[in-house]
């Protein structure tokens, strides 16, 4: 097979992977960590510890707050100081467990050796329980609980497990580094997930601008010899790593609007998630570490890093450890430059899904003033969902929710391609995000009303 890519839209920003040669370094522990209870999609976790409790590394400190939720474990050993709200990246208050670090004592159940464990357990239910108990969530950005994604609803069969090693966001290199440094663990993780999904084939998609990762992952696949796993080279194109785009690229299938990947037989997991699954199932290690990139457009490579960090370490500590905020930085971003979030609060803590601290200079990131739309259609050409951002923008301005729904505003994946490519610098995504929220509200209200009506009809029928 040649290089694959998705069928519509997309943009080609410079990949700016300046930190690609920086090997993963382990970040030292600070004096205090703050573990967020909302590190995953879905309901926040419920804290199980109280101030004064002693904890060890890997101990459960919070349980899932709902079906779509996840366990949270202590990343350090020490004493719980407080269970209180604290501001997150954007400044919103979120419940955190504050732990004063004392030594580094690990739960004895965790296998801390470097030995590769390649034997896959037989019991699917036990594997899923381990993944759930380890608090594994998707590390590709959405942080959706992994055990839920690996349990297809009845009647749905996984036909292909896609491992996402695209890392299509410019600047980020954390996935690249783990693919280069820990390819075997990732492949074992993939084999475990294959097992859970009933033995479907697995395709590891990696973009062509990461030849070292393609080589190391291919070598690991060949060496370990699990059946049905292959590395697939993808063209370099953003947003290749978007779930729907990756399914389109690898399987040539498109997920229906409002549908789930499993509807077309796809399960997509990030390579970092695969590593977390490996550690959870083979090493009993819960998800308490991840790799994060410190990078930027105007900082020397010597100040760029890929850190293995414990979850709960404040960003400010990491930034200080890496040498402070460079003078050229005008904007600090958690995540990539296309979909990452601007950091308004550097005291915020790292979470399971943290992937970077990115410094962008004024020249790279300052938005230009908006001018008239010249109807060039570049936004529509760039949209990977085939939407017409110029049209959605106009419809939102006149408040026509029906037309917005007809023109599929709710399908927007917020990848930013429209605003990235607009020569008139119109804040298309800002507007469409609002429109999408309102349209989703309408759709949900309609579904709720339909459900209520159906129940009322049923009740009336039973009353007769």
């Amino acid at each position, binding site marked *: 097979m040649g290089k694959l890519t998705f069928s519509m839209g997309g943009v080609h920003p410079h990949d700016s992977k300046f930190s690609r040669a920086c090997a993963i370094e382990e970040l030292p522990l600070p004096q205090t960590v703050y573990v967020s209870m909302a590190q995953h999609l879905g309901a926040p976790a419920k804290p199980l510890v109280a101030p004064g409790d002693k904890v060890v590394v890997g101990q459960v400190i919070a349980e899932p707050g709902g079906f779509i939720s996840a366990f949270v474990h202590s990343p350090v050993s020490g004493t719980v100081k407080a269970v209180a709200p604290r501001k997150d990246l954007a400044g919103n208050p979120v419940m955190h467990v504050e732990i004063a670090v004392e030594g580094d004592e690990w739960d004895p159940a965790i296998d801390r050796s470097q030995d590769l464990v390649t034997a896959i357990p037989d019991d699917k239910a036990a594997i899923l329980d381990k993944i759930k108990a380890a608090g594994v969530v998707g590390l590709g950005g959405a942080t959706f609980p992994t055990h839920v994604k690996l349990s297809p609803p009845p009647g749905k069969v996984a036909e292909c497990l896609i491992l996402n090693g695209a890392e299509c966001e410019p600047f980020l290199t954390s996935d690249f580094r783990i693919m280069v440094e820990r390819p075997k663990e990732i492949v074992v993780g993939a084999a475990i997930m294959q097992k859970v999904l009933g033995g479907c084939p697995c395709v590891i998609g990696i973009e062509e601008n990461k030849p070292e990762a393609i080589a190391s992952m291919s070598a690991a696949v060949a060496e370990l010899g699990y059946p049905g796993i292959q590395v697939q080279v993808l063209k370099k194109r953003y947003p290749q790593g978007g779930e*729907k785009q990756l399914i389109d690229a690898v399987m040539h299938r498109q997920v229906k609007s409002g*549908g789930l990947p499993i509807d077309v037989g796809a399960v997509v997991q990030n390579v970092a998630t695969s590593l977390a699954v490996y550690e959870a199932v083979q090493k009993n290690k819960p998800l308490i570490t991840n790799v994060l990139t410190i990078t930027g457009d105007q900082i020397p490579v010597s100040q760029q890093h890929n850190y293995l960090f414990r979850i709960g370490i404040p960003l400010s500590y990491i930034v200080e450890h890496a040498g402070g905020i460079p003078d050229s930085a005008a*904007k600090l*971003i958690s995540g990539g430059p*296309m979909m990452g979030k601007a950091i308004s609060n550097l005291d915020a803590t790292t979470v399971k899904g943290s992937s970077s601290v990115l410094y962008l200079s004024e020249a790279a990131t300052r938005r230009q003033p908006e001018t008239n739309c010249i109807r060039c259609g570049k936004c529509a050409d760039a949209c*990977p969902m*085939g939407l*017409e951002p110029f049209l959605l923008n106009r419809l939102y301005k006149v408040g026509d929710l029906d037309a917005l729904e007809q023109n599929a505003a709710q*399908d927007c994946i917020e990848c*930013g391609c429209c605003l990235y490519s607009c020569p008139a610098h119109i804040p298309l995504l800002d507007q469409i995000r609002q429109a999408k929220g309102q349209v989703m509200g309408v759709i949900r209200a309609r579904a709720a009303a339909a459900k209520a009506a159906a129940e009322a009809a049923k009740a009336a029928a039973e009353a007769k």
Partner: protein
Amino acid sequence: MDKKYIVSPNPHIHANVSTTSIMRDVIIALCPAILVSVLAYGWAELLVLAVSVLSCVLLEWAVTRWMMKRPSTVGDLSAVVTGLLLAMNLPSAIPLWIVFIGAFVAICVAKLPFGGIGQNVFNPAITGRVFLLVSFPAQMTNWNPTPGFVALPDAISGATPLSALKEALKSGSTIPQFMEANGYDLASFLWDAGASAGEISAGALLLGFVYLLIRRVVKPWIPVAVLGTMAIISAIFSGINPEVYTGVQFNLLTGGAMLGALFMATDYVTSPMSTLGGVIYGIGIGVIAMMIRYFGSYPEGMSFAILLMNCTVPLLNMWFHQKKYGRA
């Protein structure tokens, strides 16, 4: 964090394209054709170009600043493009005050009253040109070549190939007779067809258009539809009667076919957004232009064809949309 940092939603980077950079690319793409016309028609052509561009820019600046009380949009270079395209549609011997009137109609009638760049329904340069054509028919069809910097082998005084042919056909001669009487050689038309700046050299226009394609400023569908339609229609008609109907090569290389298809019909603002809409729009232009050339009283119909199809753009945008992901 003592220093203030920017906080705004994603994306945090931009492709570094702007309206200005796009217009600059269009200007660069027009340069080969402008060069050929200046070489062919000399100082007079340069003056027409200069007056047209300066009038468009000054009028846009004056109207936006003084009448509309808005920030000037001159910096986006769209007025320069309008000025160049207008000048390229005019004979080099035209009085300069008529050029100014054309610029006035383009900027102050076709463009700014609709809201400026991006809002106009009709292509400003073509509107200006058509206004001049119906208002000053004598001056607009005075094709006496002004002295150029290089000699022109094919130039016939007083008429473009298209208008000369129309006269010849009216007087009862056939196309082969006409070609021979004027010593026309179809192959040489590619570089030198003896007409206004924008019509003289199809080759130079194509060269510029390739630049636009490489820079991804435009997509080829609209020009392909326009020129393809013109080629098919002229192939059919000239196949039926080559004595009365001109052939494919003649139609594609003369008149405003190239300038219209490559640079006027592809104007972002006045062409449809979707690919299918663009193709239909292009076919419409090709059909109307050929019908005017064959059956109309005007020798050339490109401008009228584009203006007429401009009217259909809102409808085409309403009917034809992009193919969406996951929606059959």
